[in-house]
């Protein structure tokens, strides 16, 4: 599980970043700007003389927060809706499904753009917006898993002994619906990181002097000739992060694959 090892390392670095970085992420030094990587500044400095290494590490924090928090938002809204729609069927299901149809007809970035255009951008609003973008797909997945599980005999057994719907949903269905939802969620973390970066890149996400990776790349864009390291460092950092989360997702998928599970059990 290289993925989880790298990701764990990233999370540790991200959490500890404020204490381990050599410079503050917004510490400027005008005389020292656009310096190539050196012993003093491992990844060089940007146009305000800020240390790219420090900024990249702090950026890891933002990116991971973005990815996980937005995914959490999408799960928090999408999973209950999906459970409800999938178990209740009928009219509830119809309304929920048609609403997701509408939201799914927006390409993700468009929906993000529209949602963010409403309010002035900030990290938290971006997290919520990106989270909302991924609600419909979470609803759909949860619903389809719930539909399958609702037909399982242990759910019928719970109904036969007179359990309430809420109990059946949270105690019988949800624990069994988690594995596929988690696998999907791990992929969604990467989508959220990338979508967040794209929104920041366009200027609707994180705001300066934040060291969000998307924003760092956007800001470094005009300088790519003079100081390529300013753009490359966050680009590579983002690549590593997303690959790590992807690997973790693949690992999860293999570990939680129902077929593998049945063979093993």
């Amino acid at each position, binding site marked *: 599980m290289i993925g989880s090892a790298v990701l764990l390392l990233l999370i540790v670095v991200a959490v500890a970043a404020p204490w381990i970085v050599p410079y503050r992420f917004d510490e400027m030094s005008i005389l020292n700007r656009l310096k190539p990587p050196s012993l003093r500044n491992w990844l060089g400095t940007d146009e305000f003389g800020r240390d790219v290494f420090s900024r990249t590490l702090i950026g890891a924090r933002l990116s991971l927060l973005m990815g996980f928090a937005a995914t959490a938002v999408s799960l928090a809204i999408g999973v209950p809706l999906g459970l409800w729609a999938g178990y209740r069927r009928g009219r509830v299901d119809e309304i929920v499904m048609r609403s997701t149809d509408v939201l799914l007809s927006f390409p993700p970035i468009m929906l993000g753009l529209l949602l963010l255009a409403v309010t002035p951008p900030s990290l938290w609003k971006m997290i919520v917006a990106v989270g909302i973008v991924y609600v419909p797909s979470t609803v759909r997945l949860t619903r389809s898993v719930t539909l399958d599980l609702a037909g*399982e*005999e*242990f759910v*019928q*057994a*719970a*109904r*036969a*002994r*007179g*359990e309430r719907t809420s109990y059946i949903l949270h105690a*019988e269905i949800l*624990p*069994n619906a988690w594995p596929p939802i988690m696998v999907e969620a791990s992929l969604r973390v990467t989508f959220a990181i990338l979508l967040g970066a794209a929104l920041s890149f366009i200027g609707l996400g994180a705001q300066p002097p934040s060291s969000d990776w998307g924003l760092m790349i956007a800001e470094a864009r005009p300088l790519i000739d003079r100081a390529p390291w300013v753009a490359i460092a966050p680009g590579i950092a983002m690549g590593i992060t997303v690959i790590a989360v992807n690997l973790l997702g693949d690992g999860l998928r293999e570990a939680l694959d129902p077929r593998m599970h*049945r063979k093993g*059990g």
Partner: protein
Amino acid sequence: MTAPLLTLDNLTLAYQTGRGTLRALNSVSLGVGAGETLAVVGESGSGKSSIAFATMGLLGPEAAISGSIRFDGTELVGLDEASRRDLRGRSIGMVFQDPFTSLNPSLRVGEQVAEPLVYHQGLTRPAALERAIAALGEVGLPSPRELASAYPHQLSGGMQQRVLIASAIVCDPRILILDEPTTALDVTVEAQILDLLDHLRRSRGLGMLFITHNLGVVNRIADRVCVLYAGQVVEIGAKEAVLGRSSHPYTKGLLASLPQLSAQGRSQRIAPIPGRFPDLVDPPPGCIFAPRCPFAEEKCAAPQALTVDDTGSGARCWKSGRLPGWPQADTAPRVAQPAGAGEEPLLRAEHLVKRYRRGRIGGGIAWTRKFGVLPWPEVRAEIVNAVDDISIDVRRGETLGLVGESGSGKSTLGRTVLRLIDPSAGRLLFEGVDVAAAPADDLQDLRKRAQIVFQNPDSSLNPRRKVGDAIARAVALQTNVPREGRRAHVEDLLDRVGLPRSYYDRYPHQLSGGEKQRVGIARALATGPDFIVCDEPVSALDVSVQATVLNLLDELRDDLKLSYLFISHDLSVVAYIADRIAVMYSGRICEIGDAKDVLSPPYHPYTQALLSAVPLATPGAEKSERIRLRGDRPPSEGERSGCVFHTRCPRALGDICATTMPPLQEPRPGHRIACHLPLDELMRAPSALPAAAE
């Protein structure tokens, strides 16, 4: 006996697992001659399918094979892939268990049958297709030319299995390997396929290696039998010898575990094989069956050799030939249930109906309004009558057996009477109270007093819950056992179903199929019910396990005064356990009555066919006259005006059967038959049970 075409000699098959080497097959030796059928019989885990895959060369690279497989003088073990491929399909054909998934869904049937001809015999596609159409005709498919251009999903299961057989024999192989070819099929269809295979063997002189778990099927099809247990051949020999005068304790046990399809079979309990299947990574050192063998003694601690005499018979047991019969079940003899005809039934369904809607191509459009505004075309739906005007009673303390083939609606009926499915119409009286339309909140009494045991042990327990918790939840919900007493109460229930108390803290995946089914029973008992729907509770289990579960259910009923609605596709099982039997076909009950009345004439023609189709394991039974049904599908929804069985009925009278609902005839009180045939005509039918079993 001719010289064998296919010979397995000391074939051993091993896999490396995390815990050590798993020996799926251990020194298996057998031979199949031309025109001969060798049946390999065994329970799940015996390694019987591995024999087929090893012979075909379809095992993955992770399987380590040693020993020898010889076909017509050619050694197959270690043969290069190209040569093996050349043999497959051309000289050795194979038919798999599951026809529904073994045909490519996106290729036309004709192409799939013709394919091997193109690659093995270099035929052009049109020529190959002609040969394929001939083969489809040979396996008994009607209008093969039209059928060749159909896609697999358009065919029924029986037809699909015929297609698979056609594609296996189209290149005129000399050996046909069949891996449980009828297991997925209904018993009436199974009978047709077995007839076909027998015919092919005779007409083509095919050697068949027939793999199955079903001793009845073995009796019907095999010349010789090879009994496999835990990767070893424990007994081999002519069918009459192995089934009639079995010399290995395991074979004896298997035969004793079978419920007898006879009126008398009911009077004594079946005697199961005790214990659990051995761990193949760490098998017992001596005789592999010794831990479960009632005859075991010290000498059995040594490995046993298979001694084959010159007739080709033998058993892997030093005591073979000197063994007594399998011991009788030591539990109490079965008590005949009081008839109780007069009193009010516990559960009564009156004209119960459950309909589903299903879209139908060509049904036309009905314009409706979606959300009240948007014009919306809906396909006119076809109504599926899963439960079609059924009235039944379940009396206190009795077991009502409900038998029917797949799709007959028996499970829907079982769930509808529990209100797990809401009925579309009709009344449902539980102790005289109509619960058919009661709101879900008012069903608590029904929920406490009526429970269900499911078919599938894998799906009936929540994989993420401890066994004990699942049972305790029902105790908490429906009884007033105080919180601190619940664990003890659950442990009592575990005792009741014959599970160790330590199983309270286990998870379902740590249990075997039979154990899971016991947990399912304990869970149903936890609310203290009077009535339990047993929905195919033993269908997924091996014969020996099935027997123990049946015994358990039977004992519980007697001890706890329970009533069962016992649903099964297996007439032998129903005949064994039920006091009364209802025969269901396509949503309707065609015959209902006391078990012994239903099992003897007069029969409904469907009951008669069903009875005659059941393969029995008693040698000689296979030779009796059998009734064969046409086709395998009930009439479609538009044609349901008359008797639903008329499309397949061998005794149909003509138009009247198709247009008029059959009358209910009552030859004896409580025994009702829905048929147009006059009663005396029905009376004239011979007993469908073979004489040997009477």
